[in-house]
């Protein structure tokens, strides 16, 4: 199987927050990581290769240092990394991102399955996977929690929905987005880390992809962010005093008055 995994490098979100007083973003030594959901996508790609043979390629679109994410993926066992990096790609929303990834996958040529994470930690949309599939003209299944089998040009997966899961069959080539439940990502091996150090990373610019620059990056993004602000935390907090039984009494009384129970 030829598998392509799409990953994104994101800031470790724990450290990003807005200072409510000045309404500015505070960042303390953010270290970039592979989007956590994408590590499940990488792991699933590796497991599928181990089961059905083939090759796993990873693509990321991002600034030059996103190369580090690809090396981390190679340390996990991925065969090859492709970095899409160009100033023209900056400021992309999901539609523009999916367009660049689509052109890169076309350039790679053949594939059986594309795996994306459920969503990213920064953008947090979960849209790139389905949009990419649409551009490629392939079917897709979102929220995959298990790959059951690959057989006769079809893949059978379990798709998580609100109240359970569906068993879905999709013809290949196709795309899946995966949730955390699907596996436990492996740690990089020592050999992998050695390999990652010296691995050759393919870097493609907008002109390598031959893309129409009005369709990528900021220019190709129909959505625009007009305002960023801190979430409101106007909640009044009250710490209930007294011993346990009095605290419990107070709480129940308040909840009752508010007609919650």
């Amino acid at each position: 199987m030829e598998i392509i995994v799409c990953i994104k490098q994101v800031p470790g979100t724990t450290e990003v927050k807005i200072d409510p007083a000045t309404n500015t973003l505070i960042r303390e030594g953010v270290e970039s990581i592979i989007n956590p959901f994408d590590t499940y996508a990488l792991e699933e790609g590796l497991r599928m290769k181990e089961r059905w043979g083939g090759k796993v390629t990873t693509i990321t679109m991002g600034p030059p240092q996103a190369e580090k994410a690809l090396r981390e993926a190679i340390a996990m066992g991925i065969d090859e990394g492709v970095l899409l990096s160009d100033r023209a790609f900056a400021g992309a929303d999901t539609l523009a991102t999916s367009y660049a990834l689509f052109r890169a996958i076309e350039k790679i040529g053949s594939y059986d399955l594309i795996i994306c994470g459920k969503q990213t930690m920064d953008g947090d949309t979960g849209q790139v996977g389905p949009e990419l599939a649409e551009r490629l003209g392939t079917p897709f299944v979102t929220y995959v929690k298990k790959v059951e089998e690959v057989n006769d040009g079809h893949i059978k997966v379990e798709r998580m929905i609100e109240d359970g899961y569906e068993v879905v069959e999709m013809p290949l080539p196709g795309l899946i987005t995966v949730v955390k439940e699907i596996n436990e990502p492996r740690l990089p091996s020592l050999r992998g880390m050695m390999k990652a150090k010296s691995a050759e990373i393919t870097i493609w610019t907008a002109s390598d992809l031959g893309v129409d620059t009005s369709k990528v990056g900021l220019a190709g993004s129909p959505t625009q962010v007009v305002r960023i602000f801190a979430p409101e935390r106007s909640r009044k907090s009250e710490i209930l005093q007294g011993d346990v039984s009095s605290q419990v009494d107070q709480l129940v009384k308040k909840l009752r008055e508010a007609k919650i129970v």
Partner: protein
Amino acid sequence: MGIKVILDKCTGCKLCLKSCPYNAISISEKKAVIGSSCTLCGFCVEACKLEAIVIEKEEAKAADIADYSGVWVFAEQRWGRIAPVVYELLGEGRKLADALETRLSAALLGENVKEKASDLITHGADEVYLVESKFLESYLDDAYSRVIVDMVREHKPSILLMGATAIGRSLAPKVAAMLETGLTADCTALEIDTEKKLLLQTRPAFGGNIMATIICPNRRPQIATVRPRVMKRASRNEKKRGEIIEKKMKPEDLSSRTRVLDFVEDLTEKVKLEEADIIVSGGRGLGGPENFKLVEELADVLEAAVGASRATVDAGWIPYSHQVGQTGKTVCPKLYIACGISGAIQHLAGMQTSDVIVAVNKDPEAPIFQVATYGIVGDLFEVIPALTAKFKEMLGG
């Protein structure tokens, strides 16, 4: 095109540097310098008090925007039951349509769902576009997106809203890519800029640490998925009249490449987290898997759902389907009781919009108390059983 520092205005104050989530800014000779890792996210533009950073974008105005009008709601249904979020979308959609002085329409797809159309009208829709076919009986990306795109091309709505559900989050991006328009995920507030007649779409980003307002100025429709249980449900008005417009599709246009072979219901959740009015959640403070029964007992008395922090899920104390937070479920119940949960930002991201939050934690410094409406600083092994007993007595259990 691109980002620029206006050197005359920049004083090298470093506010932008601190604001950049991608570490792309440095200061050289008292001026900000934007490096190659910039993603044009715009945080620095917001942060700069001196308006010294600008992002320039050519405005490519599409000519036919004026042809689009009306607000559409995708009336998601499964097995003939309209998803609860649809009523919330109708409530919100009505407000948007009124602000724009335009019509509110619903798109209802399925098999034998006609009787639901009038229900959508009594909840505020001026008209319902109804497409019935056995190929639409259960949701499939190909067939559903085909119908929606066909209808959008014909009727040209300016705004299209869907629930941020498993179905909506699959359908919306496919439709957006087919129409090559913008899509904003998981909105928690919508508003109309009446002057520009634009939809202002506000959503959490960076795991709920930041709110962003997003517009789609030059393409139509403006599509948004909306988080369930955030907007107010439309009220019912039996007198409301509306039109049902039936549309036929050719069966060959409704074929789908994927097939649903089976559905397996999750029975470990007695009460569904996303739909629960009350959630009792447990964290690592429970000390071990066996103590989740304290949480379950309280939940039983209150007919509540059981939630959990990631730490307990990772430890294997409870299945992932119960996890609340950034990498789990987003919930917004009337009451959220957090037992032995520290309140890490990733957990708060999934529950801080709950109406009332009660926190039980023995550490008075625990961040959960910052979002709690009522806090009890104490040992959960005493507090939770006492609460359970009290509610039992009161509710006559």
